């Protein structure tokens, strides 16, 4: 769906992106992470055909951003980190404008507006003015504007910044539902915890370069990751798990990070075997810091 080849972008005094190449499969959510100033926003703007690359190429849905930027604009939704809204317009009119300006026919526009408002939980606020909404609701309206035309690709730059925990949870669920409806999403953030909930892959940018050279798979719904912790250290933990046919990501005498099929029976059997072999299992749970682990593993340093 998204292909970037040797992308370089320069500001007058700085090279912001340096030879970035990546490929994003359809219907995935990719986390774009990296420290402030790493080049995340610039990469998103290049993907959105808002900035022409100095060299290299970007294609979205098979279309080159330099050759047909307007076709790219039609096919994607983009929410910038500092977005604006028309405060004097009602939510309905904001969404109507977004729909009509994305080519939705006048007769269809009211229905797509209702749908987008329902998706983000603003159906009961359609007549409120945008300027009267809380920060969380403004964020929802901005996302609704970006998705009202059902884009194939959605780019979100720091979408959860400033949101409360409930709003972040709602955002995660919304992004997952958008992916399930067929969209491909790239979500930029420097808060790893929030990306954990919904992203399948991670792109790490540092100093304008892609760390590791390619997107890193951080979550596989079919083969999720689990953490096993022992009360008493055992040097043969890794060997035992390997012999049991389990993929071991990393392991030491106390702890192992493993990949297992999404099957309760398989988990129960492994736990039974571990206990039977004399391992004092203190916990066996789904890994909650996969993305963070992968991030620091790639950067080669721990927090």
């Amino acid at each position, binding site marked *: 769906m998204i292909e970037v080849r040797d992308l370089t972008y320069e500001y007058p005094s700085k090279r912001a992106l340096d030879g970035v190449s990546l490929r994003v499969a359809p219907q995935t959510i990719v986390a774009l992470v990296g420290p402030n100033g790493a080049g995340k926003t610039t990469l998103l703007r290049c993907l959105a055909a808002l900035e022409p690359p100095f060299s290299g190429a970007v294609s979205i849905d098979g279309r080159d951003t330099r050759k047909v930027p*307007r076709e790219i604009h039609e096919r994607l939704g*983009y929410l910038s980190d500092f977005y604006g809204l028309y405060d004097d317009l009602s939510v309905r009119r904001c969404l109507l404008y977004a729909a009509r300006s994305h080519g939705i026919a006048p007769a269809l526009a009211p229905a797509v507006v209702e749908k987008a408002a329902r998706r983000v939980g603003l159906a009961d606020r359609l007549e409120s003015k945008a300027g009267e909404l809380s920060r969380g609701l403004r964020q929802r309206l901005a996302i609704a504007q970006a998705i009202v035309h059902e884009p194939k690709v959605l780019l979100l730059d720091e979408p959860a910044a400033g949101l409360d925990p409930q709003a972040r949870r709602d955002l995660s669920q919304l992004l997952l539902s958008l992916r399930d409806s067929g969209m491909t999403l790239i979500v930029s953030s420097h808060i790893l915890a929030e990306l954990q909930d919904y992203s399948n892959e991670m792109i790490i940018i540092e100093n304008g370069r892609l760390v590791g050279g390619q997107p890193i798979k951080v979550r596989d719904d079919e083969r999720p990751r689990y953490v096993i912790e022992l009360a008493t250290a055992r040097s043969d933990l890794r060997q035992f798990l390997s012999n049991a046919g389990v993929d071991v990501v990393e392991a030491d005498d106390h702890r192992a990070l493993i990949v297992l099929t999404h099957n309760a029976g398989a988990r129960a059997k492994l736990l039974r075997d571990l206990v039977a072999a004399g391992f004092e299992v203190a916990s066996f749970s789904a890994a909650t810091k996969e993305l963070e682990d992968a991030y620091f593993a790639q950067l080669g340093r721990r927090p």
Partner: protein
Amino acid sequence: MNPEFQRNLWLELGPRRVLLMIVVLGLVFFAAAVTGGDFGPASLAQILYYLIVVVWGSRNAALSVVGEIRDRTWDAQRLSSLTPFEMMWGKLFGSTIYNWFGGAICLAVLLGYRFTQHDAASVAISLVYYLAVGVIAQAAALLASLVAVRRRLTHSRFDIFTYQLVGLIAAVAVFFVWEAADPAGALLVGRKSTESVPWWGQTLDARSFLLVSLAIFTAWTLIGCYRLMRLELKMRNGPLVWLAFLGFIGLYVAGFDGWLTQRQATLRWDAVELRLGLALTTYAVLTYLMVLLEPKDRVLYRWLGSRLGEGSIRSALWNLQAWMMSYFAASIVAIALLVRLTATEGGFGADASLLVSGMGCLTRDVSIFVLFQTLPGRRRGDFSAVIVLIALYLVMPYILRGMGLDAGLAYLYPQVTAPLWLGPVITWAEAIVVAAVAIGRIALSERAESREPALA
């Protein structure tokens, strides 16, 4: 309806604002009618029209894109599927719709009054004039703001005022030219009215000529807005429209040779030389204007160099900037004029020497603009280049004359020298040195980055 226009209607034409405009203007005209002072309703309507449509309208037009950038809504608009034409007219007439609403009330009063004094044709011509002056002021302000948007990201209140000022200057120019052809209006500007205009050897009715000229220049301003909107929407512009404009403006201005000879009987040039001279001057002015306004993008210059190096002439020509095309047009006309002057002067005379020196200065000056964009602190490059040109053309000549070194003026701007070839040699030597340094710095920056730019 155009969604951008519709959005502006929602924002600008709320019932309360509409009522407010009707009530305020109604009270003002009523007061003027009952007091019977110097300003009757018609005179007041004319003044209010200029204030509401030209002054206030040009500010709203200048803000139509800059305001979106300030409010961080411009990216979302650029990512819409609106065409550049829809975006342009949606903004131009949408952001000013409230001004046009007020202006329509003023025009109804003004033209209603005129209808009692003049025939319908005269009223219709006035209507066209008022509409055109409003559109040209607002379009010029929008054009200026779109030019500025390409050069910088932030826009202060003063910046916005300067964009508005461009619209006001355009309107004032139209006003004075138009009034000069108006027997009644000419009295206002203290001149005798102009009844005819000599153009390309023809004597044309002044009002008809100005009306057509006004319509054509309004169209070119709108085309300029459209082309800049295309760039804002990340589309590319080919060279053909600018070349067409160069062709038009060269022919238009060259036709005023008769107007020059009417006022300057001692001119020694014939009609052909005058026409070539007028066209050359126009292209030189456009070269300076565009090299100042256009972003001097070293990435583009390097890419052009690589295209030319590879022999992809068509690809390079397609991406030339407007100042480059204007410079080439000036060069072609200069060569034609040089050939003509050499023939009529019977050799390389004083005028030919000044002409070649002038082209050397033009080349040197545009090279200075490009060079300053390659130096450290290039964000202020244009400002520095303008300061250097002021020093070259105003300050240094003053100093040299004060010191009795008049011979040194040939190093600053075109001068008749002895021998005649010396002046051209000096200015072209300067031009070659500055151009070589500028090109060298662009090439060096390419080597430093060791990347192949890929714009096409």
